[in-house]
């Protein structure tokens, strides 16, 4: 009996999210009396599988098939379903990224089992009658839900950024086993047909510094000083929903529940009041500096540091100071 952890990777490099899932899965499997196994799917899966013993996986299933070369939610879901049936896994875990939640939802629909998304904690000893109990995220993290899960096969995801991915104290064997699922050609219908790269290098979700602007910035043009500061700090510009609704920035720059979740070393939030939907996208930042004229703005009261003042004066002054110190 095992807990199967779905590990995502980019051409052989494991995602941080997968390491989070494995880190979350270790104590869960131990408490549930299950062995922890992992599955990696697609091109480069071999390379990604190699390091998983160090993260506590005793068995690593390496799934390959012509339909699995690139991502396809149906083909990936069906692969995991066949693996669950073949190995007798009684629980499946992934990290609650867009892809993780989508693949587990596919597994749930195919197995006709419940699926609890974005858990913060899971107790497999639960209510004492075989049911698991968990606390999961609602409203992107501004509300929590305690729930019970009654299922033959327990399907859960762990909310992104709940744990930090670290290697196991005691590594497991990480024995690699290849797995070739039987996939209907029809599943090609939802396999990625093309991939378009718009930006190389740092992006909003990976940037060490994000300079955010809200309604207080005032116009699309007024983002130029934010761009300048972000450039100086090796970061990128983000924005609030009010900004995209005004058409000042593309939606891909939006930080928030319906935009991108960021986790930089520091988030400089300027002219942002801090509505709940923005806050949940920013709360994984390690440090937050708010710049606002309103001392009582949500963003200011929740930030670790703040400057009270007009961002149009404060931001250029910071850029200038950075340049001055660098000489």
């Amino acid at each position, binding site marked *: 009996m095992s807990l199967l952890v779905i590990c995502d990777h980019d051409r052989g490099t494991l995602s941080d999210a997968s390491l989070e899932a494995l880190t979350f899965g270790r104590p869960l499997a131990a408490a549930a009396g299950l062995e922890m196994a992992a599955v990696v799917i697609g091109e480069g899966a071999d390379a990604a599988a190699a390091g998983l013993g160090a993260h506590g996986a005793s068995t690593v299933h390496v799934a390959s098939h012509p339909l699995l070369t690139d991502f396809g939610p149906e083909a990936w879901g069906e692969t995991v379903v066949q693996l669950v049936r073949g190995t007798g896994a009684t629980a499946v875990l992934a990290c609650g990224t867009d892809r993780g939640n989508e693949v587990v939802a596919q597994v749930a629909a195919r197995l006709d089992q419940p699926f609890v998304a974005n858990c913060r904690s899971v107790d497999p000893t639960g209510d004492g009658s075989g049911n698991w109990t968990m606390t999961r995220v609602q409203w992107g993290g501004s509300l929590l839900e305690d729930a*019970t899960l009654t299922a033959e096969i327990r399907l859960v995801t762990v909310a992104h950024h709940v744990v930090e991915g670290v290697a196991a104290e005691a590594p497991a064997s990480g024995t690699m086993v290849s797995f070739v699922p039987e996939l209907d050609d029809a599943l090609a219908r*939802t396999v990625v047909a093309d991939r378009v790269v718009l930006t190389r290098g740092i*992006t909003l979700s990976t940037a060490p510094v994000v300079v955010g602007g809200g309604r207080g910035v005032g116009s699309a043009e007024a983002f130029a000083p934010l761009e300048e500061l972000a450039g100086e700090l090796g970061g990128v510009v983000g924005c609030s929903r009010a900004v995209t609704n005004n058409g000042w920035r593309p939606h891909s720059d939006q930080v928030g529940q319906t935009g991108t979740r960021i986790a930089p070393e520091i988030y400089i939030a300027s002219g942002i009041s801090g*509505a709940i939907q923005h806050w949940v996208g920013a709360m994984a930042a390690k440090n937050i500096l708010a710049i606002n004229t309103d001392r009582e703005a949500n963003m200011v009261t929740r930030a670790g540091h703040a400057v009270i003042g007009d961002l149009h004066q404060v931001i250029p002054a910071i850029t200038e100071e950075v340049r001055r110190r660098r000489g």
Partner: protein
Amino acid sequence: MRILVCVKRVPAPGARINVTADGQTVDAAHLGFTTSPHEECAVEEAVQLTEAHGGEVTVMTLGPAAAEEQLRYAASVGAHHFVLIPIDDVDWDPQRTASALAEAIAAVEETNGAFDLILFGNESADAGGFQVGVRVANHLGRPIVNGIKGIEIGGEQGGELDEGVATARREIDGGFEVYNVPMPAVLGVKEGINLPRYPTMKGRLASKKAVVDTDERTVEAGGQVRLRLHRPVEQISETVILGTGPEAAPAVVDLLEELGVLS
């Protein structure tokens, strides 16, 4: 083309969300209600697609009787037909919701034929189960891709342009993936696919006359049961005010140096 959009009525939160005394739902006493943001964009996308290619938009919701308000809002921005699946409870679990929707969709399709496209929001703003669309697609035996921020009708299939294919763009870090999904298909869309229009006066008047069909469904509950909702314990930390106005810049840069982001 015929498009169905499934939407959810959710509270419109401000800076803080409170929970009712029994912990079962959000205390909406001081909140308005709205259509979950991804789904508001799904309605707009469906209306735009039918404006470009002809056809009609049906909007379906599972919710309290008051969710009629969200259906009428959809009418005010250009949707044509409306189905309400009324529930008494505060919320149904995702399996139960999906089963009821799939049954109701099958009932509409039995009379009028299959929808070319069914749109869901990627996830609801409140419960955020990330699965109802996938379960419905599976019930109906149709393909689904989530996270969609662009849809075009007509796409490449076997090297040729096929009008029966929906080309869908999914945003990924630093770019996007393209899917060519044969219709009838289901897509889970995200905010940012468009900027939803505001209702016109004419639209508002028309929405008052819109006919809302009611379709009651009795479906068994699924395996995920809500015990209670609660607010996370907030780490209350004093905000360190580094200064006022541009004079605060040196203190800010000290902080950046301390965090090691200046290197």
